[in-house]
């Protein structure tokens, strides 16, 4: 029997976990609720609760067991479900809220810290169920603890549903108002997507798409700290070599996700779906995507050059990660949330990073305008216009973009909001004061781009 380990490699792994915040960000179990549909709300509530409680009953226990077996933290155990609009057609908004509450109780029972899928897919138009669900979102998010919501309002194939975009402007503002005492927390659990992936394990945008199997395990890896360290240790190398170093690191990080995904799949007897090879920051010091960009040689994240640096980073992460896993999916790329990343927060406070720069950055990385607090006196039309801009970037570039804005009720640009935990806290960012009211009120759909005609 040969001992195939070099001490250097063993120490490197331990170093990554102990000092550079390497962890598995989430094991997310996707559960289909299509068989829970029905006419009677009481029956549906019971079915939904029972199914989640049954399928995910051992999820948290297995997650904790794997964390000790492999000595790597598994930060979150979560559940995503079939978009509730699909199983709740026929229900009114009050009944949709009851489904959300049933899901909330199930999440509490199984011990997960978020449950995603209070969602609707309306890129081409609304069904009755979609409309009821969207109307129910503010109350559902304000009155539940674990439930997360997402709405897909556009895609490269369908174009952008501007009626839905305007509705979401109102929904985001209403969600924040209902939780004004908690700095608008409900809005932090709500994502508006263009080109939403069906297998994303990350919250708040996770849902179990209609093309997914009965039940599946998806894993989201993390590790901005590990990449930041590697970049910091290599101040002299040119950008081609730097990309190589990031690729190697991303490979190692993603292998951990692959290992945990396979092991969780075996222990839970549920098929393994994908590894989402995202760099997901946390508010912890040293676990920041902004810090990677700064270590690459920018004085502050947001300086000119940031978009180029982020493009290199995002591409290298994907190239390294794709080699490490048999199935890559979800969002897969570097996340640039503001409140969840201490380096981003500092860049905003120093005046280096603006909303406009963040929008430009979303052209070259995963997701979009994420966890950004905006002044509470914003109009629904302005929120809608921000969503429309971001969705247009996604639609034209055939990529996922998302918007998670938190109107800070009663606060102005420069003041702070605090959400606590993984959601962090952030300064309120200023927005463009000019109106897009007439544009967003035109309604209708922005046609799908010519590039969608790929057949």
């Amino acid at each position, binding site marked *: 029997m040969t001992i*195939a*380990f070099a001490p250097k490699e063993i*120490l490197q792994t331990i170093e990554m976990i102990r000092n550079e915040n390497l962890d598995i960000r989430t094991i997310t179990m996707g559960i289909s609720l299509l068989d829970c549909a029905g006419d009677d709300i009481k029956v549906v509530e019971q079915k939904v609760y029972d199914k989640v409680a049954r399928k995910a009953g051992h999820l948290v226990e297995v997650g904790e067991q794997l964390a000790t*077996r*492999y*000595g*790597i933290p598994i930060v979150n155990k979560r559940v995503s479900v079939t978009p509730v609009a699909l199983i709740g057609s026929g229900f009114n908004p009050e009944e949709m809220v009851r489904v959300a509450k049933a899901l909330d109780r199930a999440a509490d029972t199984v011990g997960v810290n978020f449950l995603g899928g209070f969602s609707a897919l309306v890129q081409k138009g609304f069904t009755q169920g979609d409309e009821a669900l969207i109307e129910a979102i503010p109350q559902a998010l304000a009155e539940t603890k674990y439930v997360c919501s997402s709405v897909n309002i556009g895609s490269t194939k369908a174009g952008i549903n501007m009626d839905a975009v305007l509705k979401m402007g109102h929904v985001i503002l209403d969600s924040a108002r209902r939780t004004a005492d908690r700095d608008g927390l409900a809005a932090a659990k709500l994502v508006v997507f263009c080109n939403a992936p069906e297998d994303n394990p990350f919250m708040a945008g996770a849902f179990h798409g209609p093309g997914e199997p009965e039940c599946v395990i998806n894993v989201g890896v993390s590790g901005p700290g590990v990449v930041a360290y590697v970049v910091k240790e290599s101040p002299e190398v040119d950008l081609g070599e730097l990309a190589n170093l990031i690729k190697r690191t991303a490979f190692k990080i993603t292998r951990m996700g692959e290992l945990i995904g396979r092991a969780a799949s*075996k222990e839970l007897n549920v098929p*393994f779906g994908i590894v989402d090879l995202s760099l997901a920051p946390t508010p912890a010091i040293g676990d920041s995507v902004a810090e990677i960009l700064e270590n690459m040689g920018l004085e502050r994240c947001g300086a000119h050059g940031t978009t180029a640096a982020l493009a290199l980073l995002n591409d290298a992460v994907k190239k390294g990660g794709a080699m490490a896993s048999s199935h890559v999916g979800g969002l897969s790329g570097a996340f640039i949330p503001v409140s969840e990343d201490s380096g981003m927060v500092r860049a905003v406070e120093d005046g280096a990073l603006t909303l406009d720069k963040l929008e430009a950055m979303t052209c070259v990385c995963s997701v979009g305008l994420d966890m950004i607090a905006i002044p509470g006196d914003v109009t629904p039309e302005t929120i809608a216009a921000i969503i429309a801009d971001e969705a247009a970037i996604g639609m034209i570039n055939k990529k996922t973009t998302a918007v998670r804005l938190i109107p800070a009720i009663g606060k102005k640009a420069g003041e702070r909001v605090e959400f606590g935990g993984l959601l962090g806290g952030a300064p309120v960012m200023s927005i463009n004061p000019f109106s897009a009211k007439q544009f967003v009120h035109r309604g209708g759909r922005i046609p799908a781009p010519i590039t969608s005609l790929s057949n």
Partner: protein
Amino acid sequence: MDNNKYEEQGHRGIVTVLGRDQIGIISWVSTRLAEYSINILDISQTIVQGFFTMMMVIDLTKSTVGVSELAKILGEEGKARGLQVNVQHEDVFTFMHRI
């Protein structure tokens, strides 16, 4: 390896001990391992400026405790001695460093 048929690659674990050098570290770890019928396959140690680093490859085939449990036990006892002790299934290293 088929994606959905995960098999554990082996029954070996890696013990790492990091901390200030002191008398009896190896004796303590090996005694505890013997008590759980765990065989030591390989051992390496270095001391850099008084900082002790030891790595052991252990065979868990006949072990009376699982990796998770052993990690907890040695982790806690190590802490009391001012040492950072990790016990991890070997797959975590094979997966990260070998294709």
